[in-house]
């Protein structure tokens, strides 16, 4: 059918309606009953058309509907003028065409009902029965819709007036139920009209008409006499019978939803088994999850809105009923895709979480059911299903905001197993993020173990998985989550804490070369924190066999960090070794400390070849070594000597120079009297100066390239001298400083050094110190010098 034609026909019909309505009105004005009937019938005849699409037909219907309002009033007046209503009721039935006849009959019927001079229920029965005569789906639907419409406002009053008259009440109910049933039949039948080519369009049109059918249910829900008993014994079974029997996907879907939406919550609760019992009987193509989810959502809200309702939920065992029903549905709908069944369980889970938030066993049961279901399908490759599972698993997380609670759900990890790698990882991220967001502390080793089991998607690569498309940034971000996570694994009890660390280590080490550099530091620092705590407490409160001794932990760390050096992250490993060494030093474990240093040195020698990295590493080594107090003279000498040696072997001269003067610090520790070897300090500085000289020479040789370098070095050296001078190193003499100063002066005269501000600050500092009270100015007395202006 072409839309234009549609429009044209509608226009023609509208004109005819208008015209006949006009004549009808005129007849009404002159109280001419016969003509009024005649023209109204003619007007109604326009509704007999088969040419209009449902949409246009609706427009036409509405037009006629408005006109019929006038007629209804006229009928009412007419009965007041002595024309018996029964006569009118007969008179309208003389119309030769069925459709106008029935419209008129409904109109007068509604007046009849209002007049109350007959048993209204008889009229209702008659009307609904007579309407059977229109079997054309579209026309029948609208006719019955009209019937529902005109009787609608009268029904509740009937029912309330008939209070006590159970039979009559039932009849009114019967009326609505029957009208509903018939309308639904017609509606369902619509799909078979016309060619199969236009099926899709027809279904769309049909869908637009659904509210005509649904309105009946709405009316039912508003009948005052319908209490729980009637609902349970009559209304619901009748509706469901129709819904199930019509075997139509669209209708079933819509009507189930309608039932759920229009009737009160507590009705649903009390008739849950009936309602749920119908679900497996629906067509396989019906989107049951939408239906059930609607129901569960409603009941969830109900439970949330009124506390009094909760005992009812328990009383009717809503959970087990839902669980059972969903099981049945899944069983009945063989070809339900995995996504569908998971969605069902998702809604059940949400419902459970809402209503039975304290019943972890229920939650676990839902998960279990889901596992059973999934086990039939195997691993999921379906994107949608995977997404649903993620939502499914996230639900309890969001609810409890506590991973520890989730860990109690034994079926949780089992569900995760059905996810593909990608999704599993995504899920793991969600879990970890939940921990971080809620700052959850996981405080026992077992829980930690279980937790890592959950998060393993993040922790390690899967066998055979090729992640060549992983975005580096994302990966780092993910692993940062893991690193942050480690700090949330915490227990005040050191014993337990050490167990946790052991567990974490076990899992983290499975991570592979890409993950380790990102995750191990977190572990190390977490462990170091524990060590520091242990040191703070009693020396060894647990006896020797305890795992929680600093020594054992350090040993563990040593092994852990070694893993890093295997994966070509030597810089990092070196840093961590040094950190460990520091901790060991604090615990006064000399051999352990020495061990760490050894490892650090080895790394330096074997793995760190980049000169910039060498400089950094060397500085770290020097810095750390300087603070070591645990070593005896011999060990310290070895290490110091080594460090100095490394310094001298750096590639670039300025670097050499700097490293060497840094080494000077190794021989001087402020707080430790036996570690103040002034001579060797000066030796180091001298050596540094010699290197600086060499730099200077090279600079002069190739003038212009890096002329500032050496002057800066000299100034730096000067500062070092000043430092040690302040520290009271008697071997630092005024002469040495003066000569250095002289050197700087002469150098700056020769060439624009670029280090003026540095020099000036140094000079200002000297000046300042000289004017200080106390010992400082005395020390500076030694270096009175003429400075260049």
């Amino acid at each position, binding site marked *: 059918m072409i839309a234009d034609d549609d429009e044209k026909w509608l226009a023609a019909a509208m004109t005819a309606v208008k015209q006949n309505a006009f004549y009808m009105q005129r007849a009404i004005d002159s109280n001419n009953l016969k003509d009024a009937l005649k023209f109204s019938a003619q007007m109604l005849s326009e509704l*007999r058309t088969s040419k209009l699409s449902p949409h246009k037909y609706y427009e036409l219907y509405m037009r006629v509907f408005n006109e019929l309002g006038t007629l209804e009033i006229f009928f009412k007046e007419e009965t007041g003028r002595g024309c018996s209503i029964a006569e009118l009721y*007969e008179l309208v*039935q*003389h119309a*030769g*065409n*069925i*459709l106008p*006849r029935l419209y008129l009959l409904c109109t007068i019927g509604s007046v009849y009902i209002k007049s109350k001079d007959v048993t209204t229920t008889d009229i209702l029965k008659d009307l609904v*029965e*007579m309407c*059977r*005569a*229109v*079997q*054309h*789906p579209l*026309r*029948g639907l609208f006719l019955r819709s009209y019937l529902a419409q005109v009787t609608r406002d009268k029904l509740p009053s009937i029912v309330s007036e008939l209070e006590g008259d159970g039979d009559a009440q039932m009849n009114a109910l019967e009326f609505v139920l029957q009208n509903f049933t018939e309308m639904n*039949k017609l509606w369902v*039948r619509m799909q078979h009209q016309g060619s199969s080519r236009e099926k899709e369009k027809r279904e769309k049109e049909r869908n637009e008409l659904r509210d005509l059918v649904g309105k009946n249910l709405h009316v039912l829900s508003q009948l005052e006499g319908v209490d729980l008993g009637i609902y349970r014994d009559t209304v619901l079974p009748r509706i469901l019978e129709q819904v199930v029997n019509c075997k139509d996907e669209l209708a079933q879907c819509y009507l189930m939803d309608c039932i759920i939406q229009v009737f009160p919550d507590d009705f649903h609760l009390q008739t849950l088994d009936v309602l749920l019992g119908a679900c497996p009987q629906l067509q396989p193509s019906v989107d049951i999850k939408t239906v059930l989810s609607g129901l569960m959502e409603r009941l969830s809200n109900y439970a949330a809105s009124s506390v009094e309702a909760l005992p009812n939920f328990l009383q009717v065992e809503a959970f087990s009923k839902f669980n059972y029903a969903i099981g049945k549905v899944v069983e009945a709908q063989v070809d339900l895709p995995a996504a569908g069944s998971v969605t069902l369980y998702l809604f059940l889970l949400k419902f459970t979480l809402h209503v039975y938030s304290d019943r972890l066993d229920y939650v676990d049961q839902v998960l279990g059911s889901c596992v059973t279901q999934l086990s039939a399908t195997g691993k999921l490759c379906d994107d949608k299903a995977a997404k649903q599972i993620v939502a499914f698993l996230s639900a309890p997380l969001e609810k409890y905001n506590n991973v520890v609670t989730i860990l109690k759900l034994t079926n949780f990890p089992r569900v995760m197993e059905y996810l593909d790698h990608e999704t599993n990882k995504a899920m793991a991220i969600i879990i970890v993020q939940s921990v971080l967001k809620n700052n959850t502390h996981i405080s026992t080793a077992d829980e930690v173990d279980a937790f890592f089991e959950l998060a393993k998607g993040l922790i390690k690569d899967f066998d055979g998985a090729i992640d060549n498309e992983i975005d580096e940034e994302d990966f780092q971000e993910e692993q940062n989550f893991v690193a942050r996570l480690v700090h949330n694994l915490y227990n005040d009890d050191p014993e337990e804490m050490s167990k946790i660390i052991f567990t974490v280590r076990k899992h983290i080490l499975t991570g592979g070369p890409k993950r380790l550099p990102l995750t191990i530091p977190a572990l190390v620092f977490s462990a170091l924190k524990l060590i520091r705590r242990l040191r703070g407490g009693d020396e060894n409160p647990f006896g020797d066999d305890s795992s929680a001794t600093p020594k054992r932990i350090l040993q563990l760390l040593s092994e852990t960090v070694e893993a890093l050096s295997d994966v070509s992250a030597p810089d990092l490993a070196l840093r961590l070794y040094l950190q460990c060494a520091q901790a060991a030093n604090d615990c006064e474990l000399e051999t352990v400390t020495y061990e760490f240093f050894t490892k650090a040195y080895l790394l330096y020698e074997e793995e760190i070849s980049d000169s910039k990295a060498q400089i950094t590493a060397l500085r770290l080594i020097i810095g750390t070594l300087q603070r070591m107090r645990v070593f005896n003279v011999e060990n310290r000498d070895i290490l110091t000597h080594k460090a100095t040696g490394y310094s001298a072997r750096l590639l670039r001269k300025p670097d050499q120079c700097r490293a060497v003067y840094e080494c000077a610090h190794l021989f001087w520790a402020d707080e430790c009297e036996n570690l103040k070897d002034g001579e060797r300090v000066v030796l180091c500085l001298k050596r540094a100066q010699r290197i600086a000289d060499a730099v200077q020479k090279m600079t002069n040789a190739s003038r212009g390239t890096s002329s500032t370098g050496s002057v800066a070095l000299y100034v730096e050296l000067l500062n070092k001298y000043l430092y040690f001078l302040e520290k009271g190193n008697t071997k630092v003499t005024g002469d040495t400083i003066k000569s250095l100063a002289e050197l700087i002066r002469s150098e700056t005269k020769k060439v624009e050094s670029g280090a003026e501000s540095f020099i000036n600050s140094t000079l200002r500092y000297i000046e300042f110190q000289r004017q200080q009270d106390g010992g400082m100015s005395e020390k500076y007395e030694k270096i009175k010098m003429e400075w260049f202006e």
Partner: protein
Amino acid sequence: MNFLLGAFKPACNISITFTDGKNRKQVPIKKDNGQIVMNPLFQSQETIAGKIHIDPYQGKKVEHNGVKVELLGQIEMYFDRGNFYDFTSLVRELDVPGEIYERKTYPFEFSSVEMPYETYNGVNVRLKYVLKVTVTRGYAGSIVEYQDFVVRNYVPPPPINNSIKMEVGIEDCLHIEFEYNKSKYHLKDVILGKIYFLLVRIKIKNMDLEIRRRESTGAGANTHVETETLAKFELMDGAPVRGESIPVRVFLSPYDLTPTHTNINNKFSVKYYLNLVLVDEEDRRYFKQQEITLYRLKEEAS
């Protein structure tokens, strides 16, 4: 001219009045020329009485060889128009031969007249009752005046009135079962019933119930049958599915029906049928005709 006109006019005016003419019920009758006139209504065994006024025109006298009134029951076949067959003929002599000078009134009475047949106006046949007043004159021709009246006979409800119930169909195509609550209906009756669809393989568009009148005239080889559809009443719109049952409720009062007449004086019969018609989308008609008997039930105090 006036004289001449007067000469051809009948010499007197004859009028007939019934005793209870003012109260008697009048019913409309369609005359040959299509005019509708109201005629008094009688039934069998009633006494038909009244007065006949003979009013000579001013200054004229009517000589006559006698005045009589006849009550005639006539059957007129249209193929034999103008030829009446009288099945009832009663005569009352009103006056002996003489002269009438001024208005003269004659009372008359036919007591308990047997009028077995009803007035009937059909397609090919008409049955009517008439009062015929004749002022017999020798040379000038008799003066005749007619007064039609209508006869309707009322019968009590039949003691046996079975429903009509039947299953019909076309194999593998359409099977229906229909039921009408009675086989005999009075004229203001209402037909109730239902149509039950047992099997529907065709695309039905609608279903009508027709009331058909079958009028047969003549006898033997000359029998002439005329069928008219008096009513076409839509019962159903659209295509039903198996198991549907469609209600039937037809009020007979709006239609111009008569009782069933069987072999009236060997001249004609009138029979009524209910014709159930199903029309499919290709406008093919499937129908089943059932005879019903119509009778006239005495109306309650009208």
